């Protein structure tokens, strides 16, 4: 099941719309890797508002995605983690350390825009 990835100016927005299988998550990772290169994006937003659950595989893969995107000179922001999901994640020791997280898409775009202004364009 494909996660839609939209281009918004210099950024990509991937909106997860329902629970993902491990295979879906891997597909998303690969799709983002390809798109970031093709679009020369400066930032990627992964919107997880619709997710009720975030397990260790999802969390680990998101960290990998952020790392991979950083190596391409862009920044990743995870947005929309639900209160219950955040609560469960920290109690299970799942960390998104090193990855920027914001409340929602609006905040995520605001963050990326501020960062883009602070750093000169490639």
């Amino acid at each position, binding site marked *: 099941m494909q996660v839609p990835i939209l281009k918004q100016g210099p950024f990509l927005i991937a909106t997860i719309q329902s629970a993902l299988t491990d295979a879906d998550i891997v597909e998303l990772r690969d799709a983002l890797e390809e798109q970031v290169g093709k679009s020369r994006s400066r930032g990627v937003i992964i919107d997880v508002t619709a997710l009720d659950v975030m397990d260790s595989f999802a969390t680990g893969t998101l960290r990998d995605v952020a790392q991979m995107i950083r190596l391409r000179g862009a920044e990743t922001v995870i*947005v929309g983690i639900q209160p219950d999901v955040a*609560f469960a994640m920290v109690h299970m020791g799942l960390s998104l350390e090193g990855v920027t997280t914001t409340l929602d898409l609006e905040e995520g775009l605001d963050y990326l825009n501020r960062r883009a202004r602070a750093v000169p364009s490639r």
Partner: protein
Amino acid sequence: MGFVRERERVIREQQEAIRELSTPVLQVRERLLILPMIGLIDPQRARQLTEQLLRGIRANRAKVVVIDITGVAAMDANVANHLVLTVEAARLLGARVIVTGLSPEIAQTLVNIGVDLGKMNTVGDLQGGIEEAERVLGYKVVPVPEPNHE
């Protein structure tokens, strides 16, 4: 027998209500929440506190939370650990947490337990915490000049 059970139910509900009242999440500025913790924090209360805070962050779109523990009697390893988890959970919702009101005793407890204080932004007192929060949010509080009485 039914009467005793009914009484127990009422007492439980009242305890629940008291717990919720005693951990209010208060908005003091746009995007700034304050959570004053008072009294004895047991694991259940700590858990409820975190849930209430996270819901509050989302509802108020808070970017900064000041958790004041001036009123907390004592802190054991469990509660200290819970505080660290709360800070991390708030971060996942995009909110930064400033912990204020650490007494020297509690600070020592945290160090002894091995809490990674690098993960916690702490300021001495509530006033300092609010000032720091305002700085982070880009507010500046300036005195209004006295109007001239001609």
